[in-house]
């Protein structure tokens, strides 16, 4: 591959992830207003003006045609190219990747990547499968994770308590995040006694619904307004779909036997991310893993190479993934606390890594002056997107 120009993050903006339906004390906001709010915050953070933005990529899933256009229309249509990106739960990071590429290849100098979502209620709806499969009750998100969890338990000896500990850890971190949907800790007992959704997945193993927006301005190093604590992109990789996968969004692949003929999609994208960045798992100081369902964080960390298969539950129990642990994971509370506005989620993960590397996270700042961080998101389809940032 040809040599790419270094790309920095100029500024970031996030709305609080919450329910913006105007009921029970919640504010009433349209999705595009959340997108606009995030963009304006990112501009302020970058100390840039709107006219400096040369192109925009917007990640959404359930919004209407021209989702990016709607948000940008609130700020000002300058004739800049706007491209809307739908890549399920990984849309925000997919938009980020396109922005990154357009600067790395010297097409533009300053580009906006953002994502927002005002979520429909109920189970995360997917139109990725034929109607007959949905009529059969297949490919419902909690059930897909339940199947993977059953297999993971059988193969590794992991327990329902291990899964519950992911929720407990992430909700504890989320209690320190004033932008999270849920800012209250939960106990192991509360998770294990919550309502069964799809055995063995309970309500508190599922990330909550939330609405929100997240925006990131990327630029070439010479366009930065500030040279202190510069964070650059070390890798932005995306893999979509591997033949032989059983389900769309969990990272699961053929579970053995004669049909396992390809690598796991998460392992594949991790391999690419390590190759592109020149880093390995041992170099990473802080991680945003994909915890749309609690057990997913465990096999995510294993597939990314941070530990061997089946080791993550034990390490979690030891506190290795706590904010003060050996490898802080989901310091902002993850999807489990933040909530999951599909278009915004993966961009919010990147923002958390960016702020951790700049030492700006206050009570949830990872100690030890983190220098390299990784964000991983999955998406139905399937998609696996990894972003590595370095300071």
């Amino acid at each position, binding site marked *: 591959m040809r040599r790419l120009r270094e790309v920095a993050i100029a500024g970031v903006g996030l709305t609080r992830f919450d329910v913006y339906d105007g009921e029970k004390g919640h504010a009433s906001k349209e999705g595009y207003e959340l997108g606009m709010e995030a963009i304006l915050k990112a501009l302020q953070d970058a100390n840039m003006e709107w006219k400096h933005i040369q192109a925009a990529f917007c990640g959404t899933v359930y919004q209407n045609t021209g989702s990016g256009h709607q948000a940008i229309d609130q700020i000002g249509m300058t004739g800049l190219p706007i491209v809307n990106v739908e890549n399920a739960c990984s849309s925000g990071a997919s938009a980020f990747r396109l922005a990154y590429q357009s600067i790395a290849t010297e097409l533009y100098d300053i580009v906006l990547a953002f994502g927002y979502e005002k979520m429909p209620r109920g189970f995360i709806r997917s139109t990725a499968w034929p109607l007959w499969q949905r*009529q059969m*009750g297949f490919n419902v998100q*909690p059930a897909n994770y339940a199947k993977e969890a059953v297999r993971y338990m059988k193969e590794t000896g992991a327990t329902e308590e291990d899964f519950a500990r992911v929720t407990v850890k992430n909700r504890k971190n989320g209690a320190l995040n004033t932008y999270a949907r849920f800012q209250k800790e939960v106990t192991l007992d509360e998770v294990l006694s919550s309502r069964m959704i799809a055995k063995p997945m309970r309500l508190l193993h599922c990330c909550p619904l939330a609405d929100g927006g997240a925006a990131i301005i990327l630029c070439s190093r010479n366009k930065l307004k500030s040279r202190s604590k510069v964070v650059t992109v070390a890798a932005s990789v995306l893999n979509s779909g591997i033949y032989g996968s059983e389900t769309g969004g969990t990272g699961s692949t*053929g579970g053995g036997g004669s*049909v396992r003929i390809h690598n796991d999609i998460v392992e594949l994208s991790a391999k690419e991310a390590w190759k592109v960045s020149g880093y390995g798992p041992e170099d990473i100081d802080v991680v945003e893993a994909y915890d749309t369902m609690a057990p997913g964080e465990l096999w995510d960390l294993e597939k990314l190479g941070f530990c061997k298969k089946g080791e993550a539950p034990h390490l979690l129990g030891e506190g290795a993934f706590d904010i003060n642990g050996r490898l802080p994971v989901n310091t902002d509370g993850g999807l489990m606390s933040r909530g999951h506005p599909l278009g915004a989620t993966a961009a919010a993960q990147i923002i958390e890594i960016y702020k951790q590397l700049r030492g700006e996270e206050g009570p949830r700042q990872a100690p030890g002056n983190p220098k390299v961080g990784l964000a991983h998101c999955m998406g139905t389809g399937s998609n696996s997107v990894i972003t590595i940032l370095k300071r």
Partner: protein
Amino acid sequence: MQKPPEFYRGPVPYAEGFVELPEGVRVQTLFTDCNLDDLRVSMDVELVIEKLHEDEEGNEIVTFKFRPATSNKGRSGG
């Protein structure tokens, strides 16, 4: 699943999973004719054809499902 997702109009709770056929092909399927809590990874199952639901005009829509084996025919993959 404890509650019906969008478009599913069969009985709840329901169980779905994968059955590995002797040839190595795996089939995503609903399970039937059993206590759902008794389903286990690697148990032997067999094919049945039965009603999925009735459509808007009252027509019976049938589908394949698997149930715990009364003879050895296939294997559940989870």
